[in-house]
């Protein structure tokens, strides 16, 4: 309590007068973390020797890609000052929770990332091939696309209270069948449909065992991943290794980028965002679609009701298990598309381990994003950014790329451990509903 002895007992103290301990903790944390980051940036500024760092605005340079330079030390000092200012503002309480705080955090994050990159790319051994800073957007987006689609599938399932650890299984089957159907029909779009069908197929298995047979859903997810791994591996081994058979069954055409006229000419971001494959555009639409569906429609309200309090939902006449079936199956569509990314959407032929555990990362992104489509998208982009960084920085050898690669995982642990605030799943998540 602030000291206001003259205040009338009857007047309600305003929010500014009451010191909410949680708010105080949030401010302290904000100030300390950002202060430390600013100190780190200042250290970077003092530690480097090169005056300029080169960067290009695309990911894969061609002969005539313009190379730009950025003054390293001044930029680092500006970044450090910016992060420090935001930290001070946060500690002083000028950044209440809400969009302003989000925006400030975003700015601080970009400033730190830029400073870190300048440090990582400076002082490269002379004479050797010089790695240039590249535009992180295309790589980030490419890695994040399947994660976002998978997280959307998880979101639809878990908002209806069916835990989906089987996103990885949906990815594996989606990737395999997208490749197979795409090869057989020599068409990418039919391949995508094959992926979707496989994703929905796994979703149907998940729904049968979770809703009808009430199998523990985390266990079920793990088993489905094993089943998908085994089944695709078995089927892959059945494809004869002759060229004819491989071409017929596992050599799909690959989606090519389509530039959207106008939008793709926007400087800096246009080419990264709007000269992409149709799968990426589908991802944009899916995020908006799922957000709208869950939060603006009657169907979404029912799904969420079923996920939070199925008994209450049942009492007002909502068919609990039917809603869950619909939501899980719809989720399968997105997860199947996400799986198709790994074959038709990127490298073509299916192979064992092509999905690389991305389904589990999508699950982590869902939880980090607090079971919200937009939050999950932001979390997926974070994962994509870090991995892209790991790939890029493996050229400079300034920091071991393995250690850098751990960052997203450790960040997830920090998030679920509640150091950045509690994450609360849908109340009935994982509980089968038996009409009683």
């Amino acid at each position, binding site marked *: 309590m602030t000291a206001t002895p003259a205040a009338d007992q009857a007047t309600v103290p305003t929010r500014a007068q009451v010191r909410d301990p949680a708010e105080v903790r949030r401010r302290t944390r904000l100030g300390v973390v950002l202060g430390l980051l600013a100190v780190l940036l200042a250290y970077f500024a003092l530690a480097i020797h090169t005056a300029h760092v080169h960067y290009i605005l695309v990911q894969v340079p061609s002969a005539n890609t313009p190379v730009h330079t950025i003054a390293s030390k001044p930029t680092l000092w500006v970044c450090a000052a910016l992060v420090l200012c935001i930290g001070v503002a946060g500690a002083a309480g000028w950044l209440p929770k809400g969009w302003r705080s989000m925006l400030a955090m975003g700015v601080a994050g970009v400033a730190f990332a830029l400073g870190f990159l300048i440090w990582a790319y400076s002082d490269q051994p002379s004479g050797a091939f010089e790695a240039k800073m590249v535009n992180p957007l295309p790589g980030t987006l490419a890695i994040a696309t399947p994660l976002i689609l998978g997280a959307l599938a998880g979101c639809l399932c878990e908002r209806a209270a069916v*835990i989906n*650890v089987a996103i990885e299984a949906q990815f594996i089957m989606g990737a395999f069948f997208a490749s197979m159907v795409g090869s057989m029909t020599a068409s990418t779009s039919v391949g995508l449909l094959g992926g979707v069908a496989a994703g929905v197929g796994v979703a149907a298995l998940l729904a049968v*065992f979770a809703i009808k*047979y*009430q*199998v*523990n*859903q*985390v*266990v*079920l997810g*793990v*088993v*489905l991943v*094993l*089943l998908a*791994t*085994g*089944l*695709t*591996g*078995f*089927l*892959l*081994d*059945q494809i004869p290794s002759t060229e004819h058979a491989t071409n017929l069954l596992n050599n799909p055409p690959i989606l090519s980028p389509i530039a959207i006229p106008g939008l793709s000419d926007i400087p800096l971001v246009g080419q990264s965002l709007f000269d992409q494959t149709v799968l990426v555009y589908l991802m944009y639409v899916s995020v908006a679609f799922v957000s709208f569906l869950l939060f603006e429609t009657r169907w979404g309200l029912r799904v969420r009701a079923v996920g939070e309090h199925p008994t209450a939902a049942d009492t007002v006449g909502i068919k609990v298990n039917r809603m869950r079936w619909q939501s899980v199956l719809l989720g399968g569509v997105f997860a199947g598309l996400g799986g198709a990314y790994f074959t038709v959407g990127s490298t073509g032929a299916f192979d064992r381990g092509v999905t690389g*555990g991305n389904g*589990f990362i999508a*699950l*982590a992104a869902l*939880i980090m994003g607090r079971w919200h489509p937009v939050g999950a998208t932001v979390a997926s982009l974070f994962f994509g950014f870090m991995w892209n960084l790991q790939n890029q920085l493996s050229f400079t050898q300034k920091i*071991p790329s*393995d*250690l850098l*690669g*751990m960052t997203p*995982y*450790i960040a*997830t*642990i920090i998030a*679920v*451990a*509640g*150091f950045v605030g509690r994450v609360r*799943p849908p*109340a009935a*998540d*994982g*509980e089968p509903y038996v009409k009683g």
Partner: protein
Amino acid sequence: MADDANAPAEPARDRWSIGDVEQWLPTVKVTIASIVLALVIGALLIIVSTPSVISSMSYFTSYPWDAFRNAGHAVGSSYWALLTGSVGSWTAITNTLSQAAPLICAGLGVTLAFRAGLFNIGAQGQLIIGAAFAGFVGFHTQLPGVSHLVAAILAGLLGGALWGGIAGFLKARTGAHEVIVTIMLNYTAMLLLSWLLSLKPFEQKNVANRISPLVDNNAAFPHVFGLHFGVLLAFVAAYGVWWLLNRTTLGFSMRAVGANADAARTAGMSVSMSYTMAMVIAGLLAGLAGVEQVLGDHVQLSTAFGGTVGFDAITVSLLGRATPLGTVLAGLLFGALSAGGTQMQATAGTSVSLTQILSALIVLFVAAPVLVKTIFRMKAVGDEGAVLAKGWNS
């Protein structure tokens, strides 16, 4: 804590009695039925993917016997190879046992965590860190005689326990869900090992790729009849887990917390203590699995170390219904599938992935007893197959 005189005593039981037949017989029946069902589906997969069967289908209506004969031959030769490859000879049996030992150890870790109400997906990471610790002591230090082996084993156990302990501690202190934390710790462990392998002490001389040297002979498990001593440790560990769960205060409170955390807290047990200890010991057991691979099977540390043992351990524990004895039996079955699968691929040409399908199906059916009973028209008996893991909200 273990010698607390006021600890709630369990009813005295004969240690070796077979227990209440009424209680375990249905479970055994469902398990066997699940295995049969999985084998039937596996057989169908073999049949539809065998070219000779498919070609004889074209004249099925006029002369169906060819299709049946070819199908029978394909299934028969595959499953026969699976059987002989796992128990057909002494070599096969030692193969099965040495494949089973790490599965049993890591599976016991998952089992113990299950009993405390935790779903430990992190056996893989715990195993990797345990192996890295044990390997480091094994090839980087020089100790006289058997002390080197003991030091390497202890280091491995410590590594696993540390890695498991992180998840347990975070669960106890902050409520961070162990499924997510352990999945993330798995990836972290893989990258950590990959980084360690790029450092000097883990480097093998004159080898460019990231592979560690072999452990010192002093630090390796001694071999008897083609079996290494670590296999015995797996069975000792299983007895240890049974003893811990059924004969100690700590085990009792773990089970109580696993059954109902709120009730256990009300009864004065420390829930956070149970969570932390369960994960520490679970990690220790998974670490033992890593120790067996490095010191027993002479696997070199590499970026692909561990294979899928840590994940298979989950299926082993689920099939074993989270009991120590069940885990041992399931571990032996999966070890046999693994050893026999290689033989099946070699002699019958059936993809080794079939064993993955079989194990997934077996566990799936075991987890859905209602389905199995409907198919086999068995009598429904109340609650069973309950493995103590809950949703995110537990």
